[in-house]
């Protein structure tokens, strides 16, 4: 019983924590983010398994995690509300070459982040050449050129 509860509690806790961290936090992995992710993984693993390293326990944990994950995706498919709660929605951050500063500030983004995405995806040089830049649900910035 405790394996299932552990896995479910951990899933919920991580979900809330990554919601707090915001969608940008792990979308663009820098070397440091990668190391951070590994440390989080390591810390999680200890709490998930406890001191029971049996195959049954690890299978129970994995089965629980996948069951919750699939269950949530089914729920998201059925309910628009749940989908928006878990995944959020896209946000426009540049409109007709103008930065929407308040939105950027709340999303903890700066102009350099937008321009980086514009250069790498569209080869855009200046802000004027951007028609729309959208902060997607997965934290990536998509750019539509003029």
């Amino acid at each position, binding site marked *: 019983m405790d394996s299932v509860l552990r896995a479910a*509690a951990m899933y919920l806790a991580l979900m809330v924590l990554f919601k707090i961290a915001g969608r940008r936090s792990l979308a663009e992995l820098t070397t440091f983010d990668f190391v951070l992710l590994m440390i989080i993984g390591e810390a999680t693993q200890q709490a998930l398994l*406890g001191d029971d390293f049996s195959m049954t326990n690890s299978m129970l944990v994995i089965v629980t995690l996948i069951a919750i994950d699939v269950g949530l995706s089914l729920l998201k498919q059925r309910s628009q509300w749940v989908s928006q709660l878990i995944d959020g929605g896209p946000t426009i951050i540049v409109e007709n070459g103008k930065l929407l500063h*308040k*939105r950027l500030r*709340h*999303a903890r983004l700066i102009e350099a982040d937008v321009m980086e995405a514009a250069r790498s995806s569209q080869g855009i040089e200046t802000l004027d050449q951007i028609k729309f830049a959208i902060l997607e649900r997965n934290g990536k910035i998509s750019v539509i050129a003029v």
Partner: protein
Amino acid sequence: MNDESGHTDYRNRDYPVREDMAHQVKVWRFERWGWYTLVLLVVLALLGLFSRGPLSTRDVQGSDGKVRVQYEMFHRNGSTNPMQLSVIGTPDAMVELELSGAMLEGFSIESLQPEPIRAVSAGQGMKLWVQTDAQGRANLYLTLRGDGLGLFHSRIASPGATAVDFDQFIFP
């Protein structure tokens, strides 16, 4: 986010994507308050709310000062913490210590030093006999591993001395 209603940045756009800015503002607010909560948790952890720190380390004595218990108020399931029991009795003699209450239900004793001369079970807990030194003092060092969850009330008693009651909490 006080001026959120008026500013054009907070208005919904329908093209090229359909937005729900009211929800988005809530998400941002959640992120901000979530961050404050995380900082608060870090500060509380540094203070010892989750074991080992000023909030957690306790040192209590009976009213006559004969029995003294140094322990951690907060434990975490599966982790070990030290506990020190001190008792004052007749010099160079055996003194009895009784551990009762829920302590043995919530914790397993990983080590007990020095080894008591005698140990018997007594109800929910156990009785230990330890040798006092020339000043009549005896110390017992325990390593406790939190196995349970929640609050555990325990009592350390010695004949002829005021007993010490204490509570310990084990986090998941």
